[in-house]
């Protein structure tokens, strides 16, 4: 079992500032697989068997995506709908993922204040990510503290660079924690 599988979902990478920089920062890391879902399945025709095998081969999964409509871009949802099957991910014999780590890495257009307690979005990021948290739970995975970047519209390159470096460190930590 190798390290970290990053399931990367961004439908419009050409326009991306934050997530592309983050992705570039972790690309090529030892024992880290960056799997670009929109690139692999431009027509959403997900290869379930291949995805399950890939997931099994890693001890940690990362859902890496921009925050779209308070959730993930469609293809990651499609991935969950198709790949997390009964008898594999959950249910009686569904233990393929149990014991693995699951972490969300997201960026939001909304600012820190908007997502703060009492902010304009009316829920915190932790609350928004509840479905992912519970998915991890159902599959026997350990839900990790999400890695979040707020206020993407109101930022500068320097902040993004810093965030990317921090992301890289976080992924390495995840990788090394799982190895022991």
């Amino acid at each position: 079992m190798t390290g970290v599988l990053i399931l990367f979902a961004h439908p419009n990478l050409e326009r991306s500032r934050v997530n592309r920089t983050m992705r570039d920062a972790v690309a090529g890391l030892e024992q880290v697989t960056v799997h670009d879902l929109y690139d692999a399945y431009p027509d959403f025709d997900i290869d379930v068997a291949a995805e399950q095998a890939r997931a099994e081969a890693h001890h940690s999964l990362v859902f890496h995506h921009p925050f779209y409509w308070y959730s993930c871009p469609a293809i990651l949802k499609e991935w969950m709908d198709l790949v997390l099957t009964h008898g594999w991910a959950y249910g009686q014999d569904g233990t393929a993922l149990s014991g693995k780590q699951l972490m969300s890495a997201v960026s939001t257009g909304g600012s820190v204040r908007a997502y703060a307690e009492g902010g304009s979005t009316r829920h915190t990021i932790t609350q928004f990510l509840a479905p992912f948290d519970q998915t991890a739970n159902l599959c026997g995975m350990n839900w990790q503290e999400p890695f979040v970047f707020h206020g993407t519209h109101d930022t500068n390159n320097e902040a993004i660079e810093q965030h990317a470096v921090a992301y890289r460190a976080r992924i390495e930590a995840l990788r090394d924690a799982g190895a022991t």
Partner: protein
Amino acid sequence: MDEHGFLFSAFVFLAAAVVVVPIAKRSGLGSVLGYLIAGVAIGPFGLTLITNPEDILHFAEFGVVMMLFLIGLELEPRMLWRMRKPIAGLGGLQVAVTTGILCTIGLAAGLAWQTSLAVGMALALSSTAIALQTLNEKNLMGTGGGRSAFSVLLFQDIAVIPMLALLPLLAIPALAAAGGGDGHAEGALAGLPGWLRALVVLGSVVAIILAGRFLIRPVMGFIAASRIREIFTAFALFLVIGIALLMQVIGLSPALGTFLAGVVLADSEYRHQLETDIEPFKGLLLGLFFISVGMSIDFDVAAAAPVIVTALVLGLMAVKFVILTGLGRAFGLPLSQIMLFACVLAQGGEFAFVLFQFAVTEGAIPAPTAALLTVVVALSMALTPIVILLHDKVIQPRLGRRQQADDMDPIEDGGHPVIIGGYGRVGQVIARLLNAHGIGTTLLDHDPDQIDMTRRYGSKSFYGDVMRLDLLRAAGVERARMFVVAIDDEEQAVELTQLLKEHFPHLTVMARARNRPHAYALMKAGADIYRRETFLSAVDMGEAALRHLGFGAYRARRAARRFARHDIDTLIDSFDIYEDEKALMSFSRARVDDLEQVMVQDAGQFHDDHEDSGFDGGHPDGKKTD
């Protein structure tokens, strides 16, 4: 007409063909008869626009030469082997029996035995040009009668070799002296004794086979590697003409030599290239050939002895017809197929002209007899299209439906929900996809090879002319839910769609369209679903190009999909316009026009809209707050 002889003749020929042939074809007479009529019309006994039919016939025989080369190319040794029984059996018997009976008649009429045999052999042959052209035109090559006829023609084509080799041995000394006086200008073997000439003839056949195997192929490889298209065409013509010349020098039939060369090259990798290069020349020259046959009918000879000529023509055709019917029966053909088989072959052929000429120079047949018989053969050829017409309009209908079902494969229960007409590249994929999901398909094709192949893999497939209602019924169209029109021929696809919609309105018809105009035509014919065969793969390639130029996979895919949808929408939108304006245009002409219109519609459609604005990052939550 002296100065501008060539251009003038060409003009007259083309004009006659252009005027007469389409009319003949439209009125159901067939193109062959059209050409013949055109020939009579412009020839010495018509408008006398052309006065030297023999010269032209000589030139136009090249059409036959090319046709035989193409036929040879079609005949891979493997296929020849598979047809060995009908070829040797049916063909061999036809030639032997006909020669025997005609020879006996000749003897009874008081001809020398040498002459009788030579005449018998020459008249036993039928017209490959007319028979094959007719069968092709009516799409009957795949039927039992059609294939039998082809086998016989093939055997005849082969039999010409020994016949030519035999003629020198049939020389009547007195005649040979006379013949040798004038006709040997081009034969380089004039002075040789008969047996030696026979040997040379066989030797040159062997030489062609060896050259085809060991010389021509490497040369073609070299030329093909240069990638200059027209040089390959030039080489193909050079090859055919070269062999023809060689054959002429040694006094053999050029048609035969090229046929042999064709067979030798049939399993070479350049076969298709050769075919496509020679085909247009063949078509034109063959037309010219029919025209010149029409022109060279010597109505003077016929007028001098009208009763004898009429009797000979009808007698010849009757004898051949009877023998052919007997053979068809003996070989177990169903009645309707026997009729087709006999009607299509009951005439003298172009090889007879060659043999007569050769026999006169060799001194086997007296010149006047040969002249008379040449007219007889030409007339019998000219009558063939009329016989075929009779066959189609009178004989076949009389035979009724009972027999009609015989000549196609019996289709047992045929209870599959989907029928696929035309089992080529397109039909195959559709059938495989459906079969993979447990949906049974019944396959129809008029190419026996195609069908044989699928049968070997256990498919339910049948051959026959898909345009025939009885075959369609037998295939279970009445119980099927869907019919997939996947045949190659554009016009036929439209006709078939119409036919299906008219007779089986319950059926969902899906058609494979070549291009936009064809799609319009299919829509108009009532196709419920159609797909342009190359459209999606072209879009797919465009998408690959976008990817290569830096588009993300998902964006490229969406761009391609959107483009495809747009194109399909405009296709449907412009259907009405098309209906009014382009109905009379040929598909390819209309295509150019249509492309122009499509490009105008494309312009300004995509550049301001090439991004998904939903993904554009301008989400309210990002901008509004803070």
